């Protein structure tokens, strides 16, 4: 990994974090005093991925145009790391006609066919779809891969098993990425998951399984690189479980009363940690930190501005696009 790779990953993490932080602000801005989930410029459920940037950034650093991702209900970090246009994505979250889906999809249903990116609000159900995309890549004789992302809670859903088995039997170029952020809403991993790690489950399918223990973008980068190379070479699927961190609530509005380790959350933030590591290595200066942050601020502000100034759809447009 070269200096530029490291800087690029840091920069991408900061960009995503700025995005999630600003969306959080924007989301809450106009919901008070009587907090109403359906009100405001950004209505509906909002699952932010702050703290989980290393997973998205470490994996997507290896992806090229034409590779596919299916993300779950918490999709922004993978979307941004996988080149989804920030303006269009933001406009979608604001429900505008300039959005990726013209306002029909919303934050849990972002579709960007140009980048083969999609996500879904039904947990684990993106895994079979990624298998199908991989099947198409394989049949077309390309070396493209599909990445299926899911949380550790979702890994206990039947679709996980069916997809791993299918991918292994058909030797599909899929990488299953599990973001283990310790929690599935209010349920901790040990109350829902038997066995030490989902990485161990991969063996049951004759598939390599790796657990990345700390929320370190470079460790993710290494593990993902091996898995993605393997898939591109035609050697089949892999599974990577990444121990990461849910910095915010499950969704915005979640008071997290159930969460005993809440106090230590900020100390575990991976971005300052990575900044410190890069400074230690002499790769990142204070000036660079500031300018990377400033770029991120500007880009995110512009995207929000784009979204806010875009037109809202007309009610009757709801009847369009049922059939092609």
């Amino acid at each position: 990994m070269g200096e530029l790779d490291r800087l690029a990953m840091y920069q991408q993490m900061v960009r995503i974090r700025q995005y999630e932080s600003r969306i959080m602000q924007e989301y809450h801005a106009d919901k008070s005093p009587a907090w109403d989930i359906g009100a405001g410029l950004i209505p509906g459920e909002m699952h932010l991925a702050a703290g989980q940037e290393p997973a998205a950034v470490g994996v997507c650093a290896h992806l090229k145009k034409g590779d596919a991702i299916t993300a779950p209900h918490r999709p922004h970090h993978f979307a941004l790391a996988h080149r989804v246009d920030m303006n269009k994505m933001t406009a979608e979250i604001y429900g505008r006609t300039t959005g990726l889906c013209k306002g029909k999809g919303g934050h849990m249903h972002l579709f960007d066919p140009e980048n083969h990116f999609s996500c879904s609000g039904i947990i684990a159900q993106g895994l079979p779809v990624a298998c199908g995309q991989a099947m198409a890549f394989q049949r077309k004789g390309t070396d493209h891969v599909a990445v299926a992302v899911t949380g550790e809670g979702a890994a206990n859903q039947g679709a996980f098993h069916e997809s791993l088995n299918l991918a292994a039997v058909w030797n599909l170029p899929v990488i299953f990425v599990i973001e283990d952020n310790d929690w599935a809403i209010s349920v901790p991993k040990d109350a829902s998951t038997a066995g030490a790690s989902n990485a161990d489950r991969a063996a049951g399918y004759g598939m390599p399984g790796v657990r990345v223990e700390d929320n370190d973008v470079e460790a993710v980068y290494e593990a993902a690189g091996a898995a993605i190379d393997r898939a591109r070479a035609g050697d089949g699927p892999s599974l990577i479980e990444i121990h990461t961190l849910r910095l915010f609530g499950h969704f915005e509005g979640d008071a997290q009363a159930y969460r005993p380790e809440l106090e230590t959350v900020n100390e575990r933030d991976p971005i300052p940690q990575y900044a410190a590591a890069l400074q230690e290595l002499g790769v990142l200066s204070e000036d660079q930190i500031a300018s990377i942050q400033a770029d991120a601020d500007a880009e995110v502000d512009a995207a929000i501005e784009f979204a806010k100034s875009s037109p809202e759809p007309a009610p009757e447009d709801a009847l369009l696009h049922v059939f092609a």
Partner: protein
Amino acid sequence: MSTATGTRRVTTAKAMAEGIGLEMQRDPNVFVMGEDVGAYGGIFGSTTDLFGEFGADRVIDTPISETGFIGAGIGAAVEGLRPVVELMFVDFYGVCMDQISNHMAKIHYESGGNVKVPMVLMTATGAGYSDAAQHSQSLWGTFAHLPGMKVVVPSNPYDAKGLMISAIQDDNPVLYMFHKGAQGLVWMEKNPRSIGEVPEESYTVPIGKAAVAREGTDVTIVTLSLSVQHSLDVAEELEGEGISVEIVDLRSLVPLDTETVLESVGKTGRVLVVDEDYKSFGLTGEIAAIIAENDPGMLKKPFRRVAMPDVPIPYARPLEYGVLPTRDKIKAAVKDLMA
């Protein structure tokens, strides 16, 4: 068993949870399981305070394995327990529909009546807060179409508690479908009708009996769930304009109280069905069939429906309210029937 009496105003969510709690006190075989039903109290408040009162042994958080834990509920019920299982959003039925429709609903019949499945499956329905296509459906028509399970759909706190107690006491599987927007949650816009007078003690509301939520003479609105609240609002407004609206709150879809529907339609001769579920091949059609089978001549005016058009539910507010059965659409349809 609670011996308290008197009423207070509580939310629908609280009324539901109270119903469960009273049954848990009465019968040690009753227990609750589902995602985030424990410390969290249910994402939509359906198990509020139960974890504190009954502990982790009787209010059980599950893995995200709906086929697994709904199936486990069936197995437990078959062995004589009385599980109350929550499917967090009805929209997730697709990951566990086999257990629901091929097992929960069919075992009693398939066994020639020898096996009972006394289980409640409760689930959140409904739109109105931009949760988009996979978290906003009503789908009661889907379940009512499939034989072997009772289906109840309360519209207010009183019925929510009484139907819950009836459901738990019923020896059959009961699907209990509550509307997120009628739960009276602090974090969601709500109709004042989502908070209402509820007795403290245990009582039942019979499964299979509709309620005439408002009497009237000109037009019958047949509806259920949150749309009852909207329809009542509209009826109050239209009273000022000299239109008298009768509202039938179905409350149960299986069994369906056809008698109450026919009686009301017989009186008014004009019928509007308001349904937040998809329009075609569902509840609205069934009401039309019941009337037309009985006597098409009952209808002085063509049958009307205000329902979710046959489109997935969109995210952006203007789009979503473009398809929802809003007060405005209900009002316009009633006026049309009177024109």
